[in-house]
């Protein structure tokens, strides 16, 4: 196993570089009193590929929301590229968010724009004046297998198709950091696997990937870093982890 670690340059603990993402004693209590995260410390380096696993309601989505400053942490500090996100002014948020490609758990597609427009929107926002817009949009939609749905509206798509539009939108501007919150929940195993292959590819080209997932099969096959959260706490962080703690019985 140590051989495998040596082969991959992105195994986290050995890094001397400043991490891309770091959490320092972060807690999140929602206004209604729910404690979603408790005292989370975390460092993710450029080029890492991390799975975020944990039971329903563990705090995975909350962690993603804090990263893009959709929510502010209650205590603790969060840094991205050395910038403190948790104290960032509102005016700087757009620039922060453009670093990411994000697949939201509930997709968050613009219902009154077509598939192509939804994807193009992310490109227009992040790279205004970009040339060959249409080509780039068509290419990424072809990658996720939606080349024949370009001019459909989101509510004319199946659940899995919507999810793939969300993935395409997060990929189109070649972000430095790719965040995906349960991106294969509505996809069949074959399509899911295709998406994971894609993420491995972009990770290979240098993109940092953080993917919250319940897909045990994928996590166990890919064998990359696994951060497990339970009840708001990081309970496990392994460089080549599996979905469950090794040795725990399945089902």
């Amino acid at each position, binding site marked *: 196993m140590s051989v495998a670690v040596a082969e991959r340059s992105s195994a986290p603990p050995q890094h001397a570089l400043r991490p891309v993402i770091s959490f320092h004693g972060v807690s999140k209590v929602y206004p209604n009193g729910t404690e979603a995260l408790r005292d989370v410390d975390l460092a993710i380096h450029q080029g890492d590929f991390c799975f975020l696993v944990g039971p329903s309601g563990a705090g995975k989505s909350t962690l993603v929301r804090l990263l*893009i400053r*959709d929510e502010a942490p209650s205590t603790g500090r969060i840094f991205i590229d050395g910038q403190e996100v948790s104290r960032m002014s*509102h005016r700087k*948020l*757009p*620039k*922060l*968010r*453009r670093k*990411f490609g*994000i697949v*939201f758990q509930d997709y*968050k*597609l*613009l*219902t*009154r*724009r077509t598939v192509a427009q939804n994807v193009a*929107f*992310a490109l*227009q*926002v*992040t790279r*205004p*004046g*970009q040339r060959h817009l249409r080509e780039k949009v068509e290419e990424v939609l072809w990658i996720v297998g939606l080349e024949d749905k370009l001019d459909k509206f989101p509510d004319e798509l199946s659940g899995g198709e919507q999810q793939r539009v969300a993935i395409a*939108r997060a990929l189109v501007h070649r972000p430095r950091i790719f965040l995906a919150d349960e991106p294969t929940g509505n996809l069949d195993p074959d399509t899911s696997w295709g998406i994971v292959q894609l993420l491995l590819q972009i990770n290979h080209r240098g993109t940092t990937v953080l993917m919250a997932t319940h897909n045990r099969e994928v996590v166990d096959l890919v064998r990359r870093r696994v951060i497990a959260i339970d009840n708001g706490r990081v309970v496990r962080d392994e460089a080549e982890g599996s979905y469950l703690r090794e040795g725990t019985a399945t089902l």
Partner: protein
Amino acid sequence: MRQIFASLWFALHSAGQNFRRNLGVSLAGVFTMGLIIFLVGGSLLFTHSVDTVLQGQEQNASHLKIYLSDNASLAAITNFESRLKTDPRVISVTFETKDQAAHQASQNPDIASALNVLGSNPLPASLNLNVRKLTDLSQFNAEAKATPIVDSTTPTDYNSDVISKLNTVITVIEWVGAIIAIILLTISIVIIMNTIRTAVYSRRTEIEIMKLVGATDWFVRWPFILEGMLGGLLAAIFSGAVVFGAYRLFVQAAQGNLLSVPFDVRYTVTLLIVLLVGGVAVGAFGSFLGVRRFLSA
């Protein structure tokens, strides 16, 4: 440069598309705005017309005939006349001799024959006063009565009662008109804001998503503002046309009747331009405010 054009083009394109795709709500908004612009424009034009007519009326009504006693000397009369003429409240004074009065009265054949039978001329000479403001009439009346050369039996000819009533009515109407215009404008603005805000409210998720994907406030805002301007423009054109048409019909209808309302081209054109600019401005500003609530969240 390319970036700015691209953003602008994007904003314009989205605005048009959103307007069409959300046609129901868009049209409801345009319709509401249009009706209100119509209301405001119509009431402004109407007030203007009434004002014009009443000002005419006032001038017609502000005559005072001062009868002079038969034994007043010409010098005294000329003196009195020039004193009146220099008064700033007076528009004009004309002297009517006994002969002129008789000539005037003789247009009625009955009176002519009566004068004929009588042989002499019982009609007094008079000074015909035209004053600027109706309210000054009673003062002149009192003044005239106190002047010795004035005929003491029938000193003046003006119906003080009716005139003062007309006067009050005019004042009240103008006053109330101003108040109503202000109330109407306030209400209009509030209603338009509410309409736009409610329309934007139904798209708060859209705004939220745009922001999460990394759009700046202005990138999100522009399409909404342009959409608001488009709505305001359509509303203004539509209601401006209706107001203009209604005004023409009104003027024509009035022409046939006793009152003649002048068709004031300059005022109308100015008003239409104000409505257009106002509609676009209110649409833009309303959208700006409407979006702001969901941006800063």
